[in-house]
C-alpha cells in the first residue's frame, strides 16, 4: 500500500501542478471575494472564516475526479483490483494521497490567506486546527464520490452534485470552529465533531468506496 501512496505522490509532483493547482484556485477564490463584497475590513473580518472554509472546500472538490479517473482510463484500476492489495486499502490510500496533495497544502496556506481577509488574530490557530482536522474528511468523502462516478463519461459535474451535500456537516463544524475562535469563544466542541467526522469517514467510507469501485469495474 505504501508503494501505491508513493506512486500517487510521485505522479502528483510530476504531472505538474498536482500540488499547485488546488492551492492557486484557493488563492484566487479568496482574492475574488473582496471584489465581490467590497473592501470594508470589518465585513471581511466577519465573513473570513466562512469564506476560507468554502474556498478550501471548493479547492478540494476541484481535483476529486482525478482520484480514480486516471487509473480507470489507463487500466490500472482493474489491475489493482486483481492485485493482492485489498480494494478498501486502495480507496484509503487514494484518500490519503488526495489529502497530502490538496488538503495539507491548503491547511498550510490558509493562515497566509487569512491576512488578505483581515481574519481576527485569535482565529488563526483555530483556522489551522479546523482545516487540519477537517480537510481529511473532505478528501475521504470525495474519494467515495469519485468511486461512485468513476465509470461515467462527464462524471465530474455529477460528482459535485453528489459530494457537496455530503460536505455540509464538515463545512458547518469547520467554519463554526473558526468563527468561535474569532469571537474568543471555546471552539473545542466543533473541533471534536470535526475530528469525529474525519475519523468516522476514514473508518467507514473506504468500504463504501471499494463497494462502488467493484460495481464499476464489473
Amino acid at each position, binding site marked *: 500500500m505504501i508503494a501505491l501512496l508513493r506512486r500517487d505522490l510521485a505522479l502528483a509532483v510530476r504531472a505538474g501542478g498536482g500540488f499547485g493547482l488546488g492551492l492557486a484556485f484557493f488563492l484566487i477564490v479568496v482574492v475574488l471575494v473582496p471584489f465581490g463584497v467590497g473592501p470594508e475590513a470589518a465585513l471581511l473580518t466577519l465573513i473570513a472564516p466562512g469564506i476560507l472554509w468554502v474556498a478550501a472546500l471548493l479547492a478540494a472538490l476541484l481535483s476529486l475526479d482525478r482520484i480514480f479517473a486516471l487509473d480507470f482510463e489507463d487500466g490500472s484500476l482493474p489491475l489493482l483490483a486483481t492485485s493482492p492489495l485489498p480494494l478498501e486499502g486502495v480507496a484509503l490510500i487514494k484518500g490519503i494521497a488526495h489529502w497530502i496533495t490538496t488538503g495539507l497544502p491548503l491547511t498550510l496556506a490558509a493562515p497566509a490567506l487569512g491576512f488578505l481577509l483581515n481574519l481576527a488574530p485569535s482565529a488563526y490557530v483555530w483556522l489551522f486546527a479546523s482545516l487540519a482536522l477537517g480537510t481529511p474528511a473532505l478528501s475521504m468523502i470525495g474519494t467515495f464520490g469519485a468511486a461512485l462516478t468513476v465509470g461515467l463519461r462527464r462524471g465530474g459535474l455529477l460528482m459535485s*452534485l*453528489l459530494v457537496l451535500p455530503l460536505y*455540509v456537516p464538515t463545512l458547518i463544524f469547520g467554519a463554526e470552529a473558526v468563527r468561535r475562535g474569532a469571537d474568543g469563544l471555546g471552539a473545542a*466542541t466543533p473541533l471534536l*465533531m470535526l475530528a469525529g467526522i474525519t475519523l468516522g469517514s476514514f473508518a467507514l467510507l473506504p468500504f463504501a468506496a471499494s463497494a462502488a469501485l467493484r460495481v464499476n469495474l464489473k
Partner: protein
Amino acid sequence: MSIWEYANPKKFIATTTPLVPWLLGVSIALLVGGLIWGFFFTPDDFRQGSTVKIFYLHVPSALMAINVWFMMLITSLVWLVRRHHVSALAARAAAPIGIIMTVMALITGAIWGQPMWGTWWAWDPRLTSFLILFLFYLGYMALWEAIEDPDTAADLTSVLCIVGSVFAVLSRYAVNFWNQGLHQPASLSLDKEENVADVFWYPALVCIAGFVLLFVALVLMRTATEIRVRRIKALEARMRS
C-alpha cells in the same frame, strides 16, 4: 408462502395493479375530506389566524419527505442484501415523489412563514435540513439517470442512499448546532403533551393518511412502470444477441 414472492416482477404487477385504483380513490377521498374539514370546519388560531391552515398540507408533506427517504433506505438495503430487482426499482420510483414532497414542504413552509416571521426564507435548522434533503434527492436521482446499466445503477444508488442517510442525519445535528432557529417545535409527536389541540389534530391525521395512501398508490404505479421499462430493455438485449 413468504413475502418475498411478491419480489417477482410479474407477481408484483399482477398483485398491485388491482389495488392501485382503490388506494387512489381512498386517498383522494381522505385528502378532500381532510382538507375541507381542516380548512372550513376548524377554528382559526388565536395568534396565527387562518394562515395556520396551511398546516394540513405542510405537516403531511414534510412527514412524507423524510419517510420516503427512509423507505428508499430500506428498499436499497433489501436490494443489496437480497438482490430483488423490484426493491431497487421501488426506491427509484419513490425518489421523484419524495423530492416533490420536499419541495411542497418548503413552499408551503415559505407561504406559512411569510406572514408569521415576515420572511419567505430563513436559515432555520428545519428549513435548512429540508433544503439539504432536497439536494440529497437530487443527487440520488441524477445518479440513477447517469448510469446506463440498470443493475450497476441500482447498486451505486443504494450505496449512495446508505451513505447519504448517515450524512443527512449528521447534517441535521450540525445544522441544529449552527443555528437555533425560528421554527416552532414539531407539531406532532407521540408525546401528547406537545401536540396541537384535538380539533386540529384529527383533520391533520386524515390528511396524513391521505398523503400516505397517495404515496403508496403512486409508488406502486411508478414501480410497475419501471418494471416494464426494464422488461423492454431485457427483451431488446436478448433480441440483439
